[in-house]
């Protein structure tokens, strides 16, 4: 019998959990820093380099995904669920890529230096235009909320399948090796 893959590859699972932790941290930092006086500077200084690392990692992750064998959807998923899962995955990948770019672009348009650490900084990717900054700054907030809602939907769907349908959905992405059955 040919063993069909029941889990994502080790590298895919590693990147998934690493980026999940980073994205949740980023969403938390983002929502906290705009409301903070005392911690604003420390949080912004962390937010910038983390965002750029996410941008680099999502490229690595996308390439890795293209060259990896994927496990099939569980038989318990209806075609509608499969469509929702694929669409939300596409949306999450898009957000992982676009959100850091919007952040980088909005700092460029505001003519803020894009400092990563010490004297290490990035070049601007857009011309100095405060009107452009205003639009991108709003976009960054809207995308952050969309990101958070998509994450909640994704997390909720996995919990539902794992705890109610009990089809071992979480095992597919579990950090450890899980055997079916």
């Amino acid at each position, binding site marked *: *019998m040919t*063993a*069909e893959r*029941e*889990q994502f590859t080790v590298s895919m699972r590693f990147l998934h959990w690493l980026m999940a932790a980073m994205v949740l941290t980023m969403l*938390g930092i983002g*929502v*906290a*820093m*705009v*409301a*903070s*006086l*005392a*911690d*604003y*500077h*420390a949080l*912004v200084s962390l937010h910038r380099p983390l965002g750029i690392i996410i941008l680099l990692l999502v490229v690595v992750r996308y390439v890795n995904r293209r060259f990896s064998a994927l*496990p*099939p*959807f*569980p*038989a*318990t*998923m209806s075609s509608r669920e499969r469509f929702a899962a694929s669409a939300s995955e596409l949306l999450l990948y898009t957000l992982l890529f676009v959100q850091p770019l919007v952040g980088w672009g909005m700092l460029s348009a*505001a*003519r*803020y*230096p894009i*400092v990563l650490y010490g*004297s290490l*900084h990035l*070049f601007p990717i857009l011309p*100095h*235009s*405060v*009107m452009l*900054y*205003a*639009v991108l*700054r*709003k976009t960054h907030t809207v995308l952050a909320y969309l990101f*958070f809602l998509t994450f*909640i939907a994704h*997390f*909720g769907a996995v*919990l*539902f399948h794992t*705890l*109610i349908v*009990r*089809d*071992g*959905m979480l*095992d*597919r992405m579990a950090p450890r090796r899980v*055997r*079916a*059955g």
Partner: protein
Amino acid sequence: MSPSEPAGSTDNHTPPLTTGSRLGRLAGIGVVLLGVAGAFLYLGGWFTPHALTPARFVDAFERVAGIHSGFRRNHAKGVCVSGFFESNGQGTRLSKAVVFRTGRTSVIGRFSFGGGNPYVADARDMVRGVGLLFWLSDGEEWRTAMINLPVFPVKTPQAFFDNLVAGQPDPQTHKPDPEKMETFLARHPEAVQAMKIIKSHSVSSGFENSTYNGLNAFRFVDVGGASIPVRWSMVPVQPFVAANTTAADQGDKNFLFDALIASILQRPLQWHLMITVGQPGDVTDDASIPWPDGREQVDVGTLTLDSVESEETSPARDINFDPLVLPAGMAPSDDPLLSARSAVYSQSFTRRAGETKKPSAITPSQVRRKQR
């Protein structure tokens, strides 16, 4: 079951969930998701509606001065300048920042009056400010926003906010309520002390012969990684002339800005960048207290401003002079005002960025008239 069986096949050995257990699990999932959402709302300050935030700070500026489309919410009235900083190399032993290596650094800047009204009539007793942006040769930036007061009137962001609110004009009388200010001062003895220092300090006749102070303490980090507390000032080469408060301004609402423009057009204006080196024990978290006399002062170079223009044509209008845009070799101190300034400036910048830009008090044609 064999390990090779595809994942997701229904496990016939698992007994079905009872209705109660199914509902219990659903409720559990709901609690977990609400918990995550609640944690984010908590971080965003949704459960602390009275906490001081950058948005509430800028709201207070707007209540005091009104909303003037496209203008800074504080230091609203200004003109823009440009020039260069010529470093003499003396700063390199204090900080590894590239700006202190011997040589020239391009600078743009903006002179302004404190307050949120962009059309306020010039007056000698209003707070004068200058924001400067240094374009370092390695692509880094240093931004600083300084004022002509010797110390800051308050120690904390909350005290600054309370001071702002206490000075808010009454909607009926259009004047601040003196009782509110008295209450504020009674609660903030450090502000009374700072006001004494500020009042005893003689004011110069114009922007061009004012000393501008960074006020907050910062830290300089040298090549070896050693860090020292510093404060900095721009001390004018132009001789000090005391402000003659009785002299009439001859009805010119912009007489101090006009004098600044005229003097730059006559000859470049210069300031020495003076670094004051703090000693162990000097307060770094309280900008309302001066450091003791006799602290080492290092002249690290000369700022030359040789060009002036209206905000409307200068890139400096659309720059946020955030005091925490610092190059490697400079770092914030533990002064709580610094992070708060950065946060509030950013909020003000974001609000004005998307607004329609109205003409500034000092228009391009007014600057051109002086050039003739």
